C-alpha cells in the first residue's frame, strides 16, 4: 500500500515534463513550420544558390548554371559599392528625419492630447489617411510638386534660393524626402502606441527630483519610449534600405541617386543578370541583419543604464 501511494505521488512529478514535450504542440505548429519552410526557407536557399551561379558557356543572355562562383560577390561589391553605401546612408538619413518628425507628433497625440480623445483619434486618422491612396500615386504627386516647372521650384528660383539650372527631382534631397515622407506613418504608429501608455507620473517624479524638462525627456521619456523608437526605426530603416520606388528615375530619383533596390531591379528584370541580383539581395539582407542585431542589442543595454 505504501509503495502504491509512493508511486502515485511520484508519477505526477514527471508528468509536467512529459506534457511539455507533448506532440500536440508540435502538431499545432506544423502548418506554420511547413509554411515557413515552403515560402521562406526554400526561396532563401534558392536565392543563395542563384547568387553563386555562373553564366552558361555559349548560352544566351539570362542563362546560368549552378556553380560556386564566389567571385560574383567580389564583382558586385567592387561594381556597386557606391549604391550599397548610398542605400544605407539614405535609409539612415530618412530614418533620422522620420524620427525627428514623428516623435513630437506621436508625443502630442499619445500624451498631450490624452484629455481630448476626439482630437487624438482625428490625428491618428490623419496619420493613417495617406494609406488610402496608393503610395506610388503619392510619390508621383511629389514628383509633380518638385518638377522644374512646379510652383514650388519656380518660387524657390525666383527667390534665388535655388540656382537657375538647379533641379529638385533626381537629387539626394528628393529621394531622402520621399523615403522620409513615405515611412513617417510606420515610425509614428509604434511611437504612438508606446507613448500612449507612458505613465506621466514618472515624468512628474523626474521633475520632483530636480530634473529640468529637458533632462526628464532625456533620462525618463526617451528610455521609457525605447520600445517604440526601436520598432519605429526598424520599420522605417529596413524597408527604406531596400526601397526602389523613391530612388527610381520614374519617381524622385535620378542617375546619381540609385539605391540597391534599383540595381537589383535592373539586374533582375532588365539585364537578366540573376546571380548579380541575387548576390546583391543577399548582401542587403546580411547587412540589414547585422545592423539591426547590433542596434537591438545596443538599445537593449542602453535601456539598463
Amino acid at each position: 500500500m505504501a509503495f502504491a501511494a509512493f508511486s502515485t505521488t511520484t508519477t505526477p512529478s514527471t508528468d509536467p515534463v512529459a506534457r511539455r514535450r507533448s506532440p500536440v504542440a508540435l502538431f499545432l505548429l506544423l502548418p506554420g513550420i511547413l509554411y515557413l519552410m515552403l515560402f521562406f526557407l526554400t526561396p532563401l536557399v534558392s536565392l543563395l544558390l542563384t547568387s553563386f551561379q555562373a553564366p552558361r558557356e555559349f548560352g544566351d543572355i539570362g542563362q546560368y548554371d549552378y556553380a560556386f562562383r564566389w567571385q560574383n560577390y567580389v564583382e558586385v561589391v567592387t561594381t556597386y559599392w557606391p549604391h550599397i553605401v548610398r542605400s544605407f546612408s539614405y535609409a539612415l538619413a530618412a530614418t533620422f528625419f522620420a524620427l525627428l518628425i514623428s516623435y513630437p507628433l506621436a508625443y502630442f497625440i499619445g500624451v498631450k492630447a490624452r484629455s481630448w480623445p476626439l482630437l487624438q483619434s482625428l490625428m491618428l486618422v490623419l496619420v493613417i489617411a495617406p494609406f488610402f491612396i496608393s503610395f506610388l500615386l503619392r510619390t508621383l504627386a511629389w514628383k509633380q510638386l518638385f518638377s522644374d516647372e512646379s510652383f514650388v521650384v519656380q518660387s524657390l528660383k525666383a527667390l534665388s534660393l535655388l540656382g537657375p539650372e538647379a533641379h529638385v527631382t533626381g537629387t539626394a534631397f528628393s529621394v531622402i524626402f520621399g523615403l522620409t515622407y513615405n515611412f513617417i506613418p510606420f515610425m509614428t504608429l509604434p511611437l504612438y502606441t508606446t507613448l500612449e501608455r507612458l505613465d506621466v507620473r514618472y515624468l512628474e517624479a523626474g521633475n520632483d527630483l530636480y530634473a529640468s524638462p529637458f533632462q526628464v525627456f532625456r533620462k525618463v521619456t526617451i528610455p521609457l519610449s525605447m520600445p517604440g523608437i526601436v520598432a519605429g526605426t526598424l520599420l522605417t530603416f529596413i524597408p527604406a534600405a531596400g526601397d526602389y520606388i523613391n530612388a527610381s528615375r520614374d519617381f524622385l530619383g535620378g542617375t546619381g541617386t540609385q539605391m540597391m533596390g534599383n540595381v537589383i531591379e535592373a539586374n533582375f528584370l532588365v539585364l537578366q543578370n540573376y546571380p548579380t541580383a541575387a548576390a546583391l539581395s543577399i548582401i542587403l539582407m546580411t547587412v540589414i541583419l547585422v545592423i539591426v542585431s547590433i542596434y537591438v542589442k545596443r538599445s537593449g543595454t542602453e535601456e539598463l543604464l
Partner: protein
Amino acid sequence: MAVGAFADRGADLKLVSIEKRFPGFTAIENLNLTIPAGSFFALLGPSGCGKTTTLRLVAGLEEPTNGRILIGGADVTNQKSFQRPVNTVFQSYALFPHMTVLENVAFGLRRRKIGDPVAKAHEALLLVELDHLAHRKPQQLSGGQQQRVALARAIVNRPALLLLDEPLGALDLKLRRQMQLELKTIQEEVGLTFLHVTHDQEEAMTMADTIAVMNKGRIEQMGEPQQLYELPKTAFVANFLGQSNLFTGPVVGTTSTAIAVDVSGEKIVVPVRRAHRASGQVTIGVRPEKLTLHTQGPIHDAGRNVMGPGRVIDVSFSGVSTQYLVAVPGVKTLVVFAQNVAFGPAVHVGAQVWLSWNIDHGFGLDDDPAEAPRYEADLDTKTIARQRRSSLITELEGA
C-alpha cells in the same frame, strides 16, 4: 534656498490664501496653512477633499489659481517643480522602471550634481534596510520594498520639505504599521519637515505632531491629534476622526462653567470650556468609549449625564472591546465601546440599558446644526448592515 545644496534642516512651509480652481470645480478655496520647520504634519481628509491637490501645489506639479507658497520664507510660487527644495514620495511610488534601485535613488543627486551620488544612495538604502537589493529593478521588489525605495529616493536629497502622498495606501495593515514607525523614526533622525497626506485617520494620529482635517477644499480643524480627537470642532471632524455620538438640541441653561442642552427631554450638560457655542441650537457629542452601560437606572449624579432607558440592538465583539448599539427612543442610535475587562459581553441584545458619561467628556461643536451634515462617515459594510437592521427593527416595532 538653493537647489544645489542639501538642506541642513527642515524648512517651514507657508500657504497664503491658496485657491485652486479646475474647470468646473474649485478644489481648494482660501487655504491658509503654516507648517513649522521640523514637524510631522498630516493633512487628513476623505478622497476628493483637496488634500492631494494641496500637496501637488507645494511640489510644484500644479499651479495655484491664487495665493502664494513660501518654503523657508522664500516665495516659490513661480518656481518650477524641479527648482523647489521639495521631494515627494508618490502614492504610486513612480519608481523609474528602466533604472535599478540604486540609480533611482541616485537620480536626484545626479541631477543636482552632488558629489559621490552612488555612495550617498547606498547610505540612503541602508537607512531603509534595502542596500542588498540595490541592483534589482523596482518591479522585482515587493510593494513594501518599493515604498521604502521611494522614501530613500526622496530623503537622500535632504529636501527642506518632504511630501508624502498616501505612501502607505497600497500596503497591508501589518506592513503599514511597521512602515509608520519607520517613517516616524526617520523623520526624527533626519529632522526634516514632513507633510503627509492621508485619508487614514489612525495613520495620521499615530504619526503626526499636527493634523489638519480637510473637507471640501477647506481645513475644518487643525491641532494635535489628541486635541482633535477629544475636542472636535465640527461634526465632520467628530465623525471622520473616530466615531462620535452626536445630539442636537437647544441650550436651556447656562452657568459660568457649563451649559445644559435639551436632547429629547433629557438635560445633557457640557462644560463651557469644551463647548464651541453656548447658545441657541447646538450639537453636542461624546465618544463611544466614554459611555458607560448600566443595567439599572443609575442614581442621579451631578457629575454625569444620563440617557435612557434604551434597548441594546446589536453586540459585536472585537477582541479588546465590544461595540454595543443602543437605540434610545427619541434619540438616535448610540454607539458604545466597552473594554472587555470581564469575560463575555456585559449585556445581550434586547437588554434594557441606561447610558451615562462624565460631563467633562462631552463636547460641543461649532457647526450650525441646521446645516445638513456635510459628510457621512464612511462606514464599513458591517456597520451599514447593522444600521439597516436597527432601522428595520424600529420600523417594525413602531407598526
